[in-house]
């Protein structure tokens, strides 16, 4: 019988898993809520190392929309001062987060938020960022290359302190109805620096997970093209079964949960959550290359971090139904 870690590795390597893995059973997630020195604060409102003011909500951090630090992308060198990564020490954060980590049972998974697009949005606001992508593409590309250097330097620090098996790069490039920018704009302006981040991750021996919420299916071929083998948060507004057929053996999907449906709304019943658990396993499990990642928010935040009485039923339902291979 495989351990959760071994089973997940079988899924990631398109081998012979024994069952559909569940994110939180097979992975120990770190970094996201560490309140470390390289990204936005996670415990209370405050400035990140670039000087961006963030608000901490129960659903996550969000930059203050009235206090952006960059107006014109062509002036980024004047206003964006990259933190000194040599001075960053993640060891205390790693020690705190790895106390109960069992490397025999789980894969250590570091969540690194604020990818290239999200970080530029945090600097200049969403509208200015998007306008810049099409009106000043050269300046954006130059900025993204510099930001990729910073992200890679941070990644090396993360690798040194945590030694993660999996590095999750978060960059939400899509709405519920489609990508924010055209796929061609992504290709021309963001993809080259994005590829460097993927390459650097692989050179460090970590498995790269690309987290992109929303309907981003038009970017997936580009993701595979730059070496991404796992797409995370795969939400159901994308044609997930079609994607599984198209990318069979090339890209694992993690997600499959109806994040806006009845099961994800406040007050959804335990039965509705159980039914969604079964649906996701039955619909996406048989093609393999699938990791179930439920996203259940409640009044206090993400239930998997803050707890929820309904989770016991979800885990039970998963355990009863996941052994389909």
């Amino acid at each position, binding site marked *: 019988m495989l351990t959760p870690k071994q089973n997940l590795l079988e899924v990631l390597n398109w081998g012979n898993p024994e069952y559909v893995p569940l994110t939180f059973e097979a992975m120990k997630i770190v970094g996201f809520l560490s309140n470390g020195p390289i990204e936005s604060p996670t415990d209370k409102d405050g400035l990140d190392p670039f000087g961006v003011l963030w608000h901490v909500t129960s659903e996550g951090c969000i930059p203050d*929309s009235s206090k952006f630090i960059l107006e014109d992308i062509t002036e980024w060198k004047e206003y964006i001062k990259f933190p000194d990564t040599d001075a960053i020490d993640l060891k205390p954060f790693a020690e705190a987060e790895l106390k109960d980590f069992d490397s025999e049972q789980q894969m250590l998974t570091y969540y690194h938020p604020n990818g290239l697009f999200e970080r530029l949005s945090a600097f200049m606001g969403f*509208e200015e960022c998007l306008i810049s992508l099409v*009106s000043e593409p050269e300046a954006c590309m130059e900025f993204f290359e510099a930001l990729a250097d910073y992200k890679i330097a941070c990644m090396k620090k993360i690798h040194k302190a945590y030694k993660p098996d999996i590095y999750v790069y978060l960059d939400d490039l899509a*709405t*519920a109805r489609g990508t*924010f920018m055209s796929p061609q704009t992504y290709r021309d302006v963001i993809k080259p620096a994005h590829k460097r981040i993927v390459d650097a991750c692989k050179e460090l021996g970590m498995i790269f997970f690309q987290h992109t919420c929303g309907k981003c299916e038009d970017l997936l071929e580009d993701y595979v093209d730059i070496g991404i083998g796992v797409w995370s948060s795969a939400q159901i507004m994308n044609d997930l079964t079609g994607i599984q057929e198209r990318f069979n053996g090339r890209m694992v999907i993690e997600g499959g949960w109806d994040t806006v449906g009845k099961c*994800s*709304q*406040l007050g959804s019943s335990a039965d509705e959550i159980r039914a969604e658990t079964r649906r996701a396993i039955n619909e996406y499990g048989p093609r393999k290359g699938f990791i179930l990642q439920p996203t259940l928010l409640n009044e206090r935040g993400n239930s998997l971090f803050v707890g929820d009485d309904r989770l016991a039923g979800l885990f039970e339902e998963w355990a009863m139904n996941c052994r389909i291979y």
Partner: protein
Amino acid sequence: MSKIIEVKEKVEAGKAKLVPGLVQEALNEGCSAPDILQAMVEAMDVVGNKFSSGEIFVPEMLVSARAMSKGVEVLKPILASSGSVSNGLCIMGTVAGDLHDIGKNLVTIMIESAGFDVIDLGVDVPITKFIETIKEHPEVKVLALSALLTTTMPSLRETVNGVRESGLTGFKILVGGAPITQAFADEIGADGYAPDAGSAAVKAKELIA
């Protein structure tokens, strides 16, 4: 007249640097300010439809809106002296408990581009603030409410209920946001629902027709 057509084309193409000069040339040609404004509104209708159909994306829509905004700046002094040609006032905000401004801002831009005056109350707006603002501006035609999270859908419902219970009338309530559907909009008693920013502008005009 030819300059008006050019203004329209350049707004569609998002040429913010060219539009103000062309608007001035159109005025010099003898075109009226309301006619030029109408041409720009029509251009943004085209842009909104292209966005809703997936032909263009948010950045292209934004650059067109910015081009129109630059043109409107030229027209503003003239429009102010000749009386308003606005479609009316829209009060906009993201409901209490929700800090997301992206969708709300895009809708604001498109509704402004459709010829409405907009008061944007920002994010995390309490029900009382919506009610106070409506009382201060009884001429309001549309109250547009945004919620991005499944966890703030109840807040959207409470806001609609709160505004209805205040007894204030004379305006329509338009709702939207990632988890919002037509069914949910109907359930909470909104007058209209729009799935994206382009559709929101169309729906706002429908609601006041």
